[in-house]
């Protein structure tokens, strides 16, 4: 394939008019910017464009042959939908070159209003495999901003298999966790990173401690900022990047100054042009590199582009950390000052007369038996297996289905949250195998696996919390694509849940108890700290020890390591919404879930029994009074908390 200036697009971030002019003057082929509405980067309202400025910016860019993309990349709550619809109509009139979107609801709305502006899938859409890309392409997505955990060779494969345009971050501030799958800020502070309000808990200082003893474990601690990813910089690997088939090279930083953006654009522009003009004669320009390096914010890394970077991608000492957004806080406890939600009286909500279904996610057959014995209607099995636990074999699944059939309850097989090509291949095989084992359904975690399951399996399919379901149009999209039940986002507050439940075309399930994951990372924290590498897999450090991150508020966040060596960082406190069940029933929620995969089989039994009893009392319709002593009875080794429920009013 011959290169032209069209096949390698240099894409610059723009926050203000001044930056727009600077980026274009410096040689950007395209720019992306946000309007005042439904856009990430909401910390600073002055780094966005109002409707009039948006229109002018498009005219300005087009007059200079520069493409302009508008970010409409927030998750959308139910009450925001009318506003989004109007905004999309406005954008359709002013015709930017594309919209960068996150919420699946936008795909529904685009069809509804016959939007003619091309759509690009945001990095928040959890896109790692060809099936997700194809699912999005069915809805007119022409370009995917891929996850930063993908290597260039994985990108080449995706490009070859799907033909979609790929956009890849080449420079700037990166998340340590999988974007779109980090719930730390949203659940603890009520300020969701998926709604443009990330408070960056990954940039807090942490100590790595042994989970059992609480003692520090690193002989030589490289520094407290254990999740502080260095800035991405692909300048040193431009030839590999260009030849990978990525078509758009994206610079991060919509809150950056004109000076900062124009320097980066100018230096990359120069190198790209030199390469396109004469790839064989291309040489690395040490002077330009020096300039880029001198004006860096943080130190640089190529992150995952050339393979898992391990310790080399983390700026442990935090010396160059430009600014902070928050410090660690004690998570809200279940017995703290937050008021218990009290339902309105006198409602005749019909859902109150239904017996609520209780599902429990379990790690092994002992826990599954315990859950069923104590009143669970559904057990979720499969997906991630956390060390030292083992993945579910076909034999185990067969035994689980037998146990469920005997009790006339259900077993549903789940799939991992992050699904790269390897896992997608394994799941395709699993789905085929399940046709004879006949579990009672599948639960999938991303739109690619939804598509694959729909095409290859006869089982009924439901979707997990990782779809970040916030509104009924997203539920409609899931239904259109084969789902028969959906899980509500972990970040939704009571008010948002109530609104969603009123309008959803699908039955909704809500997670009400359990050890919840704040972040999922391809970075292995213990091996980076203790071995200084990304030796992958090490098959060693997590075989008989458990680790936690201790923050400056004294909270311990356990690290769970799965069979793919991904690290899952738990919140310090386990979710417990037992005192809020009456209000949730009132809101019309009839499917409840306990995330019990990190619990012993005994604890799974105790918690399942407690929720079963309370739900049954509520469904019986008698006068209900919550007995606070139950909280003590269901206490496990970890403290209980209430996540986003502390918020009286949601943002």
């Amino acid at each position, binding site marked *: 394939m011959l290169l032209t200036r069209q096949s390698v697009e240099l894409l610059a971030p723009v926050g203000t008019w001044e930056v727009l002019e600077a980026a274009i003057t410096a040689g950007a082929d395209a720019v992306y910017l946000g309007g005042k509405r439904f856009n990430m980067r909401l910390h600073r309202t*002055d780094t966005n464009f109002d409707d009039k400025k948006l229109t002018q910016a498009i005219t300005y860019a087009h007059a200079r042959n520069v493409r302009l993309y508008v970010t409409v990349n927030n998750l959308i709550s139910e009450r925001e939908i009318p506003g989004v619809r109007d905004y999309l109509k406005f954008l359709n009139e002013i015709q930017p070159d594309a919209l960068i979107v996150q919420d699946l609801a936008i795909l529904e709305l685009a069809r509804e209003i016959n939007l003619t502006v091309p759509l690009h899938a945001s990095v928040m859409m959890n896109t790692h495999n060809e099936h997700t890309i194809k699912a999005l392409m069915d809805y007119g997505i022409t370009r995917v901003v891929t996850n930063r955990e993908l290597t260039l060779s994985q990108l080449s494969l995706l490009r070859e298999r799907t033909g979609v345009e790929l956009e890849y971050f080449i420079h700037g501030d990166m998340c340590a966790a999988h974007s779109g799958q980090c719930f730390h800020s949203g659940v603890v502070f009520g300020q969701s990173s998926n709604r443009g309000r990330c408070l960056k808990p990954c940039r807090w200082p942490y100590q790595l401690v042994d989970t059992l003893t609480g003692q520090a474990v690193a002989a030589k601690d490289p520094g407290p900022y254990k999740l502080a990813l260095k800035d991405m910089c692909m300048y040193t690997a431009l030839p590999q990047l260009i030849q990978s088939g990525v078509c758009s090279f994206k610079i991060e930083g919509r809150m950056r100054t004109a000076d900062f953006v124009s320097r980066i654009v100018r230096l990359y522009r120069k190198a790209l042009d030199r390469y396109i003009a004469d790839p064989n004669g291309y040489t690395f320009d040490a002077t330009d590199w020096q300039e880029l390096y001198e004006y860096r914010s943080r130190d640089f890394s190529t992150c995952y582009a050339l393979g898992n970077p391990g310790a080399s991608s983390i700026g442990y000492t935090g010396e160059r950390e430009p600014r902070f957004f928050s410090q660690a806080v004690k998570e809200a406890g279940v017995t703290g000052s937050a008021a218990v939600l009290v339902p309105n009286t006198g409602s005749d909500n019909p859902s109150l007369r239904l017996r609520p279904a209780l599902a429990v996610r379990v790690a092994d057959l002992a826990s599954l038996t315990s859950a069923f014995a104590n009143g669970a209607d559904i057990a979720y099995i499969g997906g991630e297996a956390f060390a030292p636990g083992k993945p579910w074999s076909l034999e185990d699944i067969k035994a689980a289905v037998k146990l469920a059939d005997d009790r006339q309850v259900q077993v549903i097989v789940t799939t991992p949250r992050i699904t790269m090509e390897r896992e997608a291949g394994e799941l395709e095989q699993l789905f085929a195998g399940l046709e004879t084992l006949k579990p009672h359904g599948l639960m999938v975690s991303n739109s690619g696996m939804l598509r694959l399951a729909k095409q290859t399996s006869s089982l009924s399919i439901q979707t997990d919390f990782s779809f970040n379901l916030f509104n009924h149009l997203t539920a409609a999209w899931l239904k259109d694509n084969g789902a028969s039940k959906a899980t509500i986002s972990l970040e939704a507050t009571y008010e948002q849940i109530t609104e969603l439940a009123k309008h959803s075309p699908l039955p909704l399930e809500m997670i009400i108890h359990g050890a919840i994951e704040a972040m999922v990372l391809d970075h292995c924290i213990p091996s980076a700290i203790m071995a200084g590498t990304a030796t992958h897999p090490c098959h060693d450090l997590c075989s008989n020890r458990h680790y936690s991150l201790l923050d*400056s*508020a004294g909270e311990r966040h356990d690290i769970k390591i799965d069979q793919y060596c991904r690290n899952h960082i738990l919140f310090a406190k386990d979710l417990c919404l037992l005192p809020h069940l009456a209000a949730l029933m009132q809101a019309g929620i009839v499917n409840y879930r306990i995330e019990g995969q990190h619990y012993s089989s005994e604890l799974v039994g105790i918690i399942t029994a407690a929720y079963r009893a309370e739900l049954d009392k509520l469904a019986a319709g008698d006068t209900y009074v919550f007995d606070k002593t139950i909280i003590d009875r269901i206490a496990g080794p970890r403290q209980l908390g209430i996540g986003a429920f502390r918020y009286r009013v949601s943002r």
Partner: protein
Amino acid sequence: MHNIGILQLTQNLDDAVHGFKSGLTGQDLAVEFHYVNADGALHDLPQLAGKLAKQKVDLIFACSTPAAQAAVALAGNIPVVFTPVFDPVGAGLVKTMDKPGGKATGMAGMVPAAAKAAFIRELLPSANNIGILYHSGDSNALLEISNFKQAAAGLFSLVELPADKAEDLSVLADRLPPNLDALFLPIGRVIEENFASVAYYAEAANLPIITSHAPNVPAGALGALVANHFELGRACGAQAAQILAGAEPGNIPVGIVEHPEIQLNTFVAANLGIELSPSLLVKAKEVFE
């Protein structure tokens, strides 16, 4: 043609820069601006100031105390006009406010403490016990506290809550005395940058926050009485014009904030069950919802 350097610390001060440009444009002068911004990186300021000096600028407009200090520290005699410096004398930029005496002058950014105390009284008429949460390593915070203690004597009883480093905010909940009616935040980098954690604990304890840093209001403080950075910048533009016409910066008095503005957050008020007085809402320059 005059060459004017603009040395900025963060985008938070964009309004001051816009005001400065507008102040100078009104003066009928031919000027070219050379703009540099450290984007929050304090350690880059001396290098950026040096870059302006190399461009042979006739004057530097410095936004923030560290930017002003970097500009004044340059060798040679480039005049410096600064804002919104809290304490120009304490920061070593001028000898006295009336007679700066050196190569710098400008507009101080501190709102008089008496006006702040009166504002808090009007905002929270029944408040008695006020906690002052401040960065103990920030000289601006120490100055503001000293002024505020004098101004608030007789109005409130004050409890000092010093934070030495950012991580101290993580345990703020354990340090809040039980009977506080509000938290007052003097200016100070560590508190401003980690405001979300302060707001988190304040909300859990039902405490309204009055801040000195305007961006904290949309982010969860109840209110603030703050300088208008655009106006300060504009006044600096007029001072710069005097200097370009031949006046000595050392002879131009440092200006002070004369018309501070009220900012309020009605979302926070509703969350805390606080009723904002209609007269205050009318007076407010900005009301966030």
